[in-house]
């Protein structure tokens, strides 16, 4: 089995993995970082979104071996030193209900703001179109990202 090295939330891990192991299962079942969720199997829902080398990726559509040598940021790493402004925005603006899409949504929003610090509502809605939420109708998610943008600009 190939051995890979990934740095997750600042911690380096060396793991022997089957070539077919999905990145999301490495995170959830091997490293026990269960904040990253699985909501589909066709790369549509975005519940498994993590940040890999400065890009948001869907970890259910990537093999663990493809992440070899990469730096990963997951929901557990985002708020390590207190809530990140995106997390604070989701809390303050009631941007979540059941919470299942939330970690992926937050990671996608985090990367969106890294790429565009002051997005319009249209840009936020477009930027989050790879992440599905069935509870909120997105309005408070948009508000959450707007609050985070104000807080970080």
């Amino acid at each position, binding site marked *: 089995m190939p051995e890979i090295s990934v740095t997750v939330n600042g911690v380096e891990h060396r793991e022997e993995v*089957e070539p*077919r*192991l999905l990145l999301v299962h490495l995170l*959830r*079942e091997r490293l*026990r*970082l*269960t*904040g*990253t*969720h*699985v*909501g*589909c*199997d*066709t790369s*549509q*829902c975005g*519940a498994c979104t993590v940040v890999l080398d400065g890009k948001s990726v869907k970890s259910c559509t990537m093999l663990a071996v493809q992440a070899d040598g990469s730096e990963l940021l*997951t*929901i*557990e790493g*985002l*708020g390590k030193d207190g*809530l990140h402004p995106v*997390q604070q925005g*989701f*809390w*303050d603006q*009631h941007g*979540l*209900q*059941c*919470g*299942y*899409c*939330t*970690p992926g949504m*937050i990671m996608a929003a985090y990367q969106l703001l890294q790429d565009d610090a002051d997005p319009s*509502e*249209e840009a*936020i*809605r*477009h930027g*989050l*179109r790879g*992440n*599905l*939420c*069935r*509870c*909120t*109708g*997105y*309005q*408070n*998610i*948009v508000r959450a990202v707007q609050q985070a943008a104000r807080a970080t600009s």
Partner: protein
Amino acid sequence: MTTQERPPKLIGEPIKRREDPRLITGQGSYVDDLQPLGTLHLVIVRSPYAHARVTGIDVSAARNAPGVVAVLTPEDVQQSTEPVPVAAQLEGMHMPLRHALTGGEVKFVGEPVVAIVAEDRYLAADAAELVEVEYEELPAVIDPEQALEGGPLVHDELGTNLCVVSPIGDAEAAARAIEGAEVVIKQRLMNQRLIPNPIEPRAVLAHYEPGPGTLTVWSSTQIPHLLKTLLSACARVPEQLVRVVAPDVGGGFGCKLNVYPEEILAALASRRLERPVKFVETRQENYVATIHGRDLIGHLELGAKRDGTLVGYRIKVIADIGAYQHLLTAAIPTLTALMLQGVYKIPALAGEIVEVFTNKTPTDAYRGAGRPEATYYLERGMDLLAAELGMDPVELRRKNFIGAGEFPFDTQTGLVYDSGDYDAALDKALAIVGYDDFRSEQARLREAGRYLGVGFSTYVEICGVGPSSALPAGGWEAGTVRVERTGKVTVLTGVSPHGQGEETSFAQIAAERLGVGIEDVTVIHGDTAQVSAGIGTFGSRSLAVGGTALVMSLDKIEAKAKRFAAHAMEVQADDLEFEAGQVFVKDAPEKTISLPEIATLAYNAVDLPPDTEPGLEATSYYEPGNFTFPFGTHVAVVEVDTDSGAIDLQRFISVDDCGNIINPLIVEGQIHGGLAQGIAQALYEEAVYDANGQLLSGSLMDYAVPRADQLPSFELATTVTPTGVNPLGAKGVGEAGTIGSTPAIVNAVVDALAPLGVQHIEMMLRPERVLDAIQAAKGGAR
């Protein structure tokens, strides 16, 4: 007491949710996050055919595959478990039962046939590939009207595809009224099949421990207590040895208000193997194996006088329930029947609900469950009638509204509407949309070749479900309040929130009543070992029913606390007031005793008041005397591109009245989410089967759950008309957005295209249907 000493007011305030810190940091605990040592994974082999005879099953290769611990086959499962439970049983209903695995004849794509249990999910999936099932394909019936007219039989032994017919209202009176009406509208209205799609697929983890003989089941369920009872029977484990836990649950929307084959199989496998067994559905399995919603064809006849006064309403509804009944399947279309009358005075009304078997996934409760259909039929009917009469749809509605002074109001369907002020919600919505200005602007833009439309839906829904007489397993709810020795407070509730925020709203109620900080209250739900009894979360019932059980227990706590205080202070209990965590003497407010002090007296029990037991805990069961009936007005503004058929939803105004509000932040969120679903039914979502019964819209690639850029920012407002049904005055809000919104969209699109002669377009309003409707109105095919 001075005002400074009073704790902050909590009820009615937008308190941020206490659930959220764990959920936004990845510390939530959903079923698939749990991984007890030695957990095995269960994978299902499903029927690829809508209708077929199973002529052979060969599991020998799978049994010998790496990591496989057990293979379950239909014969084995049929001997070792009871059938998948059906709770809603209507008079005269055919009820073909199935077991958790089907052997003889499979009846829909996705029906479970074989189960594999292996050391991990990859190995289980590998082994599933090795199972050889031989099928002899049989003719399938997909169209419910064809199923009624002699199509292939889903269940040969029944000799018919008809499941049950349920009449409601006075058929003779309705027939007479419609015959004598000056104007009659007749329209076939399709309320298409939808797929629930909670973002967390179903998941179950069963753990049988042979020592104590206990079965613990973690399930993504909305009904842990009902699941405990039903699963105990299905898996043949005594109920008192079964514990069900609903941990964090990633959305339900009705589809997790059920008992599924995989729950029975996981329990059976764990009992046999004496190890934890987990099943987690893939999304593509979710599309075929979890219940669907809606799929009702309505044949509507609405009669009125020329001045717009309604005289009669008759509807025949054909409900395609799929291949089998699930837990509440048969009851859902009867909710449509109950709500046929809507917000109007209709002197004669009759409905006939025909439930039909087809070779599709079973339907059951989904987001609104029966009420969106009733609202759609009547609110589309009202716009069709307005068009026929040449009357403004707002004026037609207003003319027929049940007046604010006419409550409680008896409907033709046997309900008693508790309270309402339909004009108030409509007035507010008209003001927000700027109705008169819109009509002038619309006329001006039409001159310029642009087609804008406005659509209304004035709805009423049935919530606070409900009196036990109306439900197959009871409609009460239970709640316990325990003041701990330190004065901290534990609330235990039988409702099972999965996003609705009761850890916050129930804490608001308890903290304000007991005068403690909200941080001193913990709300526990979803664990049958901690919460002694309950029904669950569905039907917009948690606050109206579960919240009332909590209030009843708070009343008991307050009364008992006063008895301890009166005894200690040597006064009469009637002379005491309870406020701000203190009991004080009304006439001498400087004489106080705090809640922690009372708790110490209660638990140390050295000097008990007469006839008083130690402890400070109370449990209540609340049996609702009636349903509650929230209402409101939804307005959509659209522009239709008549070249492409594309619909631009420009504004959506939602004025909702859910009675008294405990937490406006949560109420707003509930409305938002409901609107997204209601709008998506009109514009985006439709389950599509081919003639062989294959689900073509069988994944998130093919079924359009709306995305952030497909919805506008909604404009919300409320009116507040409390209910007298419960002491909170709260009616429920979980489904209002879904129930009200759909017809507003369709009405707006038809309004936009009315100058072209378009009278109706069937949902969902995909561009080619819009173009076809325009072309048909012009008098020719596209």
